[in-house]
């Protein structure tokens, strides 16, 4: 097998295709920055998946290119190829190897999923309301005066649980830097857990088609240091109290 006339040229082509594939993966900035623990877990899993799929891609492409070059019929050659109907050992190999790769990935992905679903005891709960075509965020648990904003504020390093409701159609809350997305469904309360780990301002995008204004249904996710976050909570509550003696804000409309 190794001494076959195909071995050397096939190795050369494989190396060329590999080089091009690796260059394509390394030289292009494929993903935006990461700003959550979930994004970091995603990143490691993604690296494994990229490596595995690049391997399969390189093998298939190299064999394809080599076959076209090496086995092309000469002009006027009307003869047939060898009557090779199959090769059981080979067929088992190419069934089992991908199965192992895929099984590893399935187990790993399940672990990541279970980790991402774990709730921390000290988590912050924020209510999210979506409607055509705006987001609003309400703090109710753990604050003395509930208040509402048009942007999402998150403390650095602490888990936030978003409890999300929709008043009309399905929306989807998506923050690319968190690598997280969750549909917001009328009639249901869906949740999203995020552990932000990088200070900054990130876009909140509606990812589920929700009508005419779908493309413009945006807000911001602002990750701040714990101290700044506590300051923000205090300021927001004070603002509500000064505006309106005792009535707590209700989730009626977004007031960014």
């Amino acid at each position, binding site marked *: 097998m190794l001494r076959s006339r195909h071995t050397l040229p096939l190795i050369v082509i494989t190396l060329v295709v590999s080089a091009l594939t690796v260059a394509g993966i390394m030289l292009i900035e494929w993903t935006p920055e990461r700003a959550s623990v979930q994004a970091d877990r995603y990143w490691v899993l993604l690296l494994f998946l990229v490596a595995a799929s690049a391997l399969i891609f390189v093998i298939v492409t190299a064999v394809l290119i080599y076959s076209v070059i090496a086995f092309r019929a000469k002009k006027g050659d009307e*003869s047939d190829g060898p009557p090779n109907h199959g090769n059981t050992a080979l067929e088992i190999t190419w069934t089992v190897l991908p199965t192992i790769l895929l099984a590893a990935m*399935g187990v790993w992905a399940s672990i990541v999923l279970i980790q991402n679903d774990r709730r921390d005891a000290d988590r912050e709960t924020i209510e999210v309301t979506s409607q055509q075509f705006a987001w609003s965020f309400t703090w109710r648990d753990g604050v003395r005066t509930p208040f509402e904003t048009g942007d999402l504020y998150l403390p650095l390093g602490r888990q936030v649980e978003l409890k999300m409701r929709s008043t009309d159609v399905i929306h989807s809350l998506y923050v690319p830097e968190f690598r997280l997305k969750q549909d917001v469904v009328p009639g249901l309360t869906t949740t999203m857990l995020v552990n932000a780990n990088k200070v900054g301002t990130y876009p909140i995008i509606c990812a589920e088609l929700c009508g005419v204004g779908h493309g413009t249904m945006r807000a911001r996710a602002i990750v701040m240091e714990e101290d700044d976050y506590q300051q923000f909570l205090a300021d927001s509550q004070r603002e509500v109290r000064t505006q309106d003696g005792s009535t707590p804000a209700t989730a009626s409309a977004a007031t960014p």
Partner: protein
Amino acid sequence: MATFAPTHQEPHHHHHEVDKRPLSYWWTRAFVGTIVGIAVGFFIPWFFRFVFGMEPLWVPELYYTVILSTATLGFLAGIGCFDYWMKYILGHRVSYEDHSMHGAYSWRDYFKVNTDHKVIGIQYMVTVFFFFIVGGVFAELVRAELSTPGQQLVDGEDYNGLFSSHATVMIFLFVIPAFAGLANYILPIMIGAKDMAFPRLNALSFWMLIPGGLLLAASPIVGSYSAGWTAYTPLAVQGSTGQTMFEVAVQIVGTSSIMAAINFMVTIFTMRAPGMTVWRMPLLVWANATTSALVIFGTPFIAGSQFMTLFDRIMNTQFFNPVGGGDVIMYQHVFWFYSHPAVYIMMLPGFGIISEILATFSRKPVFGYRALAFSTVAIAILGFGVWAHHMFVSGMASWLRIPMMLTTIVIAIPTGVKVFSWLGTIWDGKLHLKTPMLWALGFIFTFVIGGLSGVYLATVPIDIALTDTYFVVAHIHYVFFGGSVFTIFAGVYYWFPKMTGRMYNETWGQVHFWLTFVGMNVTFFPMHWLGFQGMPRRVADYDERFAAMNEFITMSTALMVVGTLIFFANMAYSWAKGPKAPWNPWRGRTLEWLVSSPPSTFNFEATPQVVGGPYQYGIEGARHAVVFAPEEIGGGELTETERRTILVVASETVSSSTLLDEIRRKSKEGPWRFTFAVPAKGRDHRSAERRLQVALAVLAEAGVDANGSVVDGGPIEAIEKVVEEEPVQEVMLATYPSGQSGWMENDMLDRARKATGLGITRVVVRRDDAVAPAPGSGVVALGVVANDALGTDGLGAAIRNRADQQPLGVTLICPLNLTGPGWTDDASKVRDEAVDRAQRTIGDLVDAGVPAQGEVIDGDEAAAARVAVTAYGAERVILFTLRGEGGEATVEAVRAAIAPVEVEHVVVDAAAPAGS
């Protein structure tokens, strides 16, 4: 487990009456049917709302729903889809062997209900490529809007409508029916059947696509459905009239799809030729059997989901309204329970096509035939267990995510087996890189990318980041464009010679491939990057930082547009003018390559016998099947080089339209060649020669392989002479009706049978038909205008002379130039004399072998020429005048009357004294 193709009661003589009603009849009926349908659809809801006092009387979406349904039924009834069944239901006599709507004898037969699977296949393909253009225009509009951030071309609602329509048209009106169309043409031939199991149901499946398709494609005009092709509730419930059209149209095309699938299933299960065990079925047959099962089990679910949405909209049901106790997520479960298997409905037939093409152009057996067959079935079964992988972020029960991820990953295994088996097929083969092969190889490359990005989306934590972004757009296009569309193009090029009987242009086919292959990759690959970066799908407006990439993508689509234009030009030109295709241009082994291109009306004259696997390349002497010639012409194997000859014996009737029509019809039914023997004993040899030339010219123009000669002697001598020279399988004898025919009085039939020992077909020709000019192209319709010149030797000589140069059909018009009233005795006398002269001239011409007919009119020469051109279709006119009568003014008048038809003026000498 081989089955036997049902044989007809008259096994080889599908001597069927062809329905003669013109196109205008059917389309008038269709138009009236549609109008009646609309009226009924308007009346029903109005009546019930009125009777039960419901307010308001006018509820637009309710009326539209009923009207669209009844109008569709009206159209289908009008165009004739239900005619046969209605006759049966109403107790009229019907014949199970009724083939009156079967087969195409002219282009008109493609525009009406036809039960021939080959005609239906072509009807499908032309229709779906029309919708391919429509869907492509929508796509280009979407890309034009996306070329820069912000909204320029269309507003948000229209933009949502555009991408929704693009997806729906491409899925329901291109990919799914394109596979149905290709399989319709090829599959029955591949399994050795004469047609599909239910030809009339087959026609209905196709014709439902027309109203359903128009509703989907035309909805942008009335405010399109803008909730995406997925039509998620509650957004879809907010939709406008376009949404109603979508919901009704999905029912119609869904029904069409289900009926086609049942038909394929029954055909494959019950109509395989003897010897075709399941392990000898070509992989395309495996793929279509499996796909049909998917369609039958899956499609009712999308029908259900759309009915429930429709009822929520027009009947105030609350299936998906949480306020009324409904469940929003339930819609997605029901919808994807169809729409994920639908992905395989759009992919498995393509896998089948690729397996056929790779084997043929690699000159090798398919590697791992059984593995490929089993993996097809495995994918279909597993395909029903993965639907919720579209819903990982939907808010469904979260425990469902890990099981659905695992089943999805498992599907990657049989898919991988397919790809590796294809590589095994080309490895060490003798690759011929013709256009179909290029598409197949290009497909492997793009499909692997689409398959691998599918694994990313199956992995839940990755999917949570990437779903609903451009990564999904990239994935879906690598699978549907790089997958399904590539395989459709591969199949169209592969079977184009079989379906049209002509070869496509190889160079332009390859140009089309390379433009599309490069264009497809530069358009869709960058979308992966957009998706990773977080650009959501289904938005008209997007972040500035994606501007350059989107502009690049929009420009890249130009390559595919140019490629597609080249494809259409190549197909149209090659279909009309391409070189004639041999039976088996690719040296394939499966049954469709063992019959003519295009196949005869009933595909096989005798039931073929399958004797081996379908891809036994490289094995000395191995073959897949044997196609036989009919028993009564000696049986034996039927091949392209060995054509069967029918000997046609006719004398005065040679150029009659009855005989020529019969020959044309017969030639469609099998690979026949016709040899004429025209006996001319003691007659003018030249006359027989001229008649034969007319007949051969007509047949050559109709593409019938015919030749022949005039034989000295009687009919029996003629038959014996030909039989000595070449093998003859059948004799066709054309005579006048019994009693008028000299041959019949002499027991010609019996004597011919004894002389040859062959079957004799008698064609009876009426006398007036025998002398009338033969219709059809190949013969020049010549108008002759002459009065005094009638009966002169010069006239007869001039016409015979021209008939020797070119086959002619003569129409003689004699103008009387009457100036006074036409009813006087004088006028009658003049007229009688002229009729007498004209009849004699026509008789002389007919005797000389020139088909002729004529008329005497009261008007002048110009009027006569006009009659010749308008009533008899004369393509050239000769005006005869006597020498010395001048006639220059007459010539001018005639020229002016019938310009631009060419007018020739011939001056002849006066005749010998009349009465001779």
